[in-house]
């Protein structure tokens, strides 16, 4: 491109955004590194440097492994189940039928609700005895099952994961649907002439052509899962016990309830490393496959 038109002075356009971004995002993130080696409590601006004490303490406490485990389970299930369900829905809604638009909207509506409203609604759905699931089970005569979803150590995490999937499925479905609509009809016809059955059409033509949508949806849901905070915060307060403590919820609790901001920052640094590693692995693998496809 000729340099008279695309001058370096264009970089002035970045400055306003860069200013906001550095002041309110990058500098605070760098501050975390500083606080992670202090005993700062988050309130009184007086602290001393304690070396790697916070990290050593964290590595000796159960909460670190537990939060990582919960976050990984949360991410794995939302990514796999969420995208598989959305993909299946997209194939279903891509059929040549009437009222497609209405069906699509019906799946999209939950994504418009604030997490706080979603939390309220699903707290009702999961209520023992009087909640939606419990009363439906009563009505159809299934009794004796434990319906205390959010109060159970083994079920609470999976219950809030289901809520997250429910809320986000509409967005992924719409992105998959848009991808499917770009699959050229003549490619499908050519496949049919070559004798490909329905499954082969899906496997060898549609899925590879969906690569971009898959990359976008998987990446967004990986990031969303690793950052999970809303439903532990609104629905379970991390409980029962620590069974729904995700990394970000644990950091928040450490910083604000326990007033151990130094330690919370150290955990923040660990989470940060984890998020960066996992996200880059996904982005690189998916991008490579996309090019190959």
């Amino acid at each position, binding site marked *: 491109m000729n340099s008279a038109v695309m001058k370096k002075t264009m970089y002035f356009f970045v400055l306003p955004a860069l200013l906001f971004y550095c002041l309110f995002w990058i500098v605070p993130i760098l501050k975390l590194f500083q606080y992670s080696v202090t005993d700062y409590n988050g309130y009184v601006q007086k602290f001393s440097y304690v070396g790697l004490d916070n990290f050593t303490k964290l590595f000796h406490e159960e909460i670190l492994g537990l939060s990582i485990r919960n976050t990984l389970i949360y991410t794995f299930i939302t990514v796999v189940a969420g995208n598989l369900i959305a993909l299946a829905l997209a194939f279903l809604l891509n059929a040549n039928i009437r009222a497609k638009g209405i069906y699509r909207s019906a799946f999209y509506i939950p994504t*418009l609700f604030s997490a*706080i409203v979603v939390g309220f609604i699903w707290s009702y759905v999961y209520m023992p005895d009087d909640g939606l699931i419990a009363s439906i089970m009563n009505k159809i005569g299934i009794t004796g099952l434990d319906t205390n979803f959010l109060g159970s150590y083994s079920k609470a995490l999976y219950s809030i994961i289901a809520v997250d999937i429910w809320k986000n499925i509409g967005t992924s479905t719409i992105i998959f649907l848009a991808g499917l609509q770009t699959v050229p009809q003549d490619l499908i016809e050519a496949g049919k002439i070559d004798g490909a059955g329905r499954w082969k059409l899906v496997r060898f033509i549609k899925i590879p052509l969906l690569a971009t949508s898959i990359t976008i949806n998987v990446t967004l849901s990986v990031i969303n899962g690793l950052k999970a905070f809303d439903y532990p915060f609104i629905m379970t307060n991390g409980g029962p016990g620590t069974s729904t403590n995700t990394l970000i919820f644990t950091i928040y609790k450490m910083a604000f309830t326990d007033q151990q901001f130094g330690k919370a920052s150290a955990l923040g640094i660990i989470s940060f490393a984890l998020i960066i590693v996992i996200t880059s692995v996904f982005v690189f693998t998916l991008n490579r496959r996309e090019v190959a496809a």
Partner: protein
Amino acid sequence: MSTSGTLAKKSVTHAVIIALVLLNIAPLLIVLSSSLRSPRNMTDPLDWFNELTLASFRSAYTRMHFPTALWNSVVLTVLSVLFVVLLAAMAAYPIARIRSKVSKFLYIFFLSGLVVPGQMVLIPIIQMIKGLGIPMSQYTPILMFITCSLPFSTFLYTGFIRSSVPEEIEEAAHIDGAGLFRRFWQIVFPLILPVTVSVVITQGVWIWNDYFFNMVFITKAADAPLPVAMLGFLGDQQNPAQWNVLFAACILCALPLLVAFLSLQKYFVGGLTVGSVKG
């Protein structure tokens, strides 16, 4: 024979989809039916739509100061989105146009902010805001809404300018003597309208629905936007006697976006997919 075959197949598809739709929105239907009961109606929520009254809505409307909360939400969202569009579109322009190490770095630099959750950096953010002498007010969350929206919006704008706004158009304008600013605002900006729609919708929805930054920065009840007004109902979900009013509040809180979605549906669907089909 074959037509009746496809007809049967289509009916099955419809039946399957309708069953899934019902399963998906069942909680919302029960919430809607309960919200249309009087606050004292304690019959089984499954016995749906057994009463139609706005009594619970009236009660929720007053309790959450609906008109004030709605207005606060509108102000916060409109101001934030306006700045996001301006800043992100401007930032994306050189990143998309100049091919150098600096622009490549800026691209990754902005995008990498996407993976950091706000909850983690909240305390240093509050310190920064206080350190800059910015007072805590109704408008403080806007700073964070703008900042947190920049990574994704800049990413969308950059991709679109690279793929869909040919440089030749600008060359012509350059020969006609148009400066950098005029070229950007009069030629490039109108051409990237599809992304602007996408940014307004995707960022507008999360900003409208955000409770976290609002909850942290807004202390006066009169300044609270809708999601924060909902926090006043915290605890009510444990008590079946409060459900009808709580559910009416939930519907009221979601209503503005539902109306916006139903009337601007094609923009919502288009906006979600602009950056995703041809990234």
